[in-house]
């Protein structure tokens, strides 16, 4: 009999990286649906375009790295990265911008560091930050929600959106479908108090419901992931709590100049970040305690950048900054092992 000799264990739970990725994609569906309903077809087109690009770029770079192509493509991580980038950028982003973004995310942000599991930074956030700094105009041309464009169902038609993305559209067309986001309004309110800014802007007073709905959809997806144990509660909850606490403190202290906590939690990319971006296991901290620190720090950073920084939404930069700090957090938040009195600090061994 030809018997094989292996190390234990000899049975495995039916779980795989591809499974995990599929669950994440499933959890993103409510959010994508909400974005399509309120903001038009742009998001879906971007997702499809970005996914195709991601697969293509990954295949090429795997070939160049002399790795088995199909084996690595089938784990679905490239598609998830592409999807996260696609929902983060404005729906009307031109095709070449998405191309640059996906290239940076897959090739520079992931494979040049060693491929899956080796990247220190979240690839989608690397791409987003690069795009934001390189193409500020396109990256700030956000779509207005349909409620503002008169009564009834009026989002940009599918073909028109396609044209806008792949060919150019004239500025008038853009003007009718794009506008500021709530965070933009608050950021650029000038000397007005938040109360006055709210009353003055139609986006804030009438259209805020759309953003609330999208955030709620991301939250639903996040709860699904928690239920299926794909992510743990530590990072998302601590980020949301930290952000809520910071904003409550400042709002309570001076409501005229600071936005209220609900605003912070429900606009921008907060919910998307909390459940889908900071929970990327490769670039976040390892232990549960570490994740709490990681999440809380991101929450605080988001608040700081939104309130005093130059950019309206600080999620990408906050995440990138904490990715830098993740190894350090790991060294100092090791769990206490069985049989030891205290958790060990430091890495040990020769420097």
């Amino acid at each position, binding site marked *: *009999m*030809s*018997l*094989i*000799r292996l*190390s234990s264990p000899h049975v495995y739970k039916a779980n795989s990286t591809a499974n995990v990725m599929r669950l994440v994609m499933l959890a993103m569906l409510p959010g994508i649906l909400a974005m399509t309903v309120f903001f038009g077809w742009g998001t879906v087109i971007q997702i499809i375009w970005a996914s195709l690009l991601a697969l293509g770029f990954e295949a090429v770079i795997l070939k160049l790295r002399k*790795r*088995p192509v199909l*084996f690595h493509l089938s784990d679905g991580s490239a598609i998830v990265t592409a999807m996260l980038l696609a929902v983060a950028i404005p729906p009307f982003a031109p095709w070449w911008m998405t191309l640059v973004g996906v290239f940076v995310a897959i090739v520079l942000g992931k494979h040049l560091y060693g*491929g899956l599991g080796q990247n220190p930074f979240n690839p989608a956030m690397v791409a987003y930050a690069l795009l934001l700094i390189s193409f500020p105009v396109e990256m700030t041309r956000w779509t207005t929600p349909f409620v503002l464009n008169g009564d009834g169902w009026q989002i940009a038609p599918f073909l028109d959106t396609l044209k806008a993305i792949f060919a150019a559209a004239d500025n008038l067309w853009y003007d009718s479908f794009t506008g500021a986001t709530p965070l933009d309004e608050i950021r650029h309110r000038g000397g007005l108090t938040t109360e006055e800014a709210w009353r003055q802007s139609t986006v804030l007073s009438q259209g805020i419901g759309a953003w609330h709905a999208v955030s709620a959809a991301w939250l639903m997806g996040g709860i699904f992931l928690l239920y299926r144990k794909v992510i743990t509660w530590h990072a998302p909850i601590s980020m949301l709590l930290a952000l809520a606490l910071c904003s409550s403190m400042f709002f309570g202290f001076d409501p005229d100049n600071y936005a209220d906590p609900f605003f912070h939690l429900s606009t921008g990319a907060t919910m998307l970040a909390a459940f889908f971006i900071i929970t990327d296991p490769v670039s976040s901290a390892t232990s549960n305690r570490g994740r709490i620190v990681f999440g809380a720090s991101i929450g605080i950073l988001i608040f700081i950048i939104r309130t005093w920084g130059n950019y309206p939404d600080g999620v990408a930069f906050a995440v990138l900054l904490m990715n830098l700090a993740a190894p350090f957090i790991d060294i100092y938040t090791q769990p206490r092992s069985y049989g030891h009195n205290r958790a060990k600090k430091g890495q040990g061994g020769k420097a």
Partner: protein
Amino acid sequence: MTTVITAILILFCLAVVFGVILGYASVRFRVEGNPIVDQIDSLLPQTQCGQCGYPGCRPYAEAIANGEAINKCPPGGQSTIEALADLLDVEAVPLDAEHGEEQVKKVAFIREDECIGCTKCIQACPVDAILGAAKQMHTVIVDECTGCDLCVEPCPVDCIDMIPVETTITNWKWPSPTESSSLIATDRGRGAEQQEAH
């Protein structure tokens, strides 16, 4: 003009102050000998075989402290080279083939039928691992033998063999799992390498 002179004077005074401190420190905290040599020596395998070209491990350690290459020790192998590279913050180069290759650990064995009791091997052994006296039978104490094979040359009747240490249940080690995603798609299954056909 006065600012320039003041600046120069201040810097001069600072230099004097720090010079005095350094001078005092160099006398007060002087370390006898070169501790780096001890550290290097503790990493070398102590077989005292001379394959590196130096008469023993300590002379080689001193040479390394003076800039000698770290890749001359075959009994230490690549792991010793890497440890030395770590310690000295230099690059870990592969073992210098000129000095011999890293081989399986061996111990000496004297064929007693042929031993003439000349004590030449006893004088050659750097760790006194051979038991015997003039005109008496010589034998190797296996636990002390480092496998340096300095005893093989002097024996006039060539009765010493170097026998590889065999793997038994007590000294068997788990092998490292095969390297991951580089090859695996082509050889399906981790067990392929260890498959035995009976």
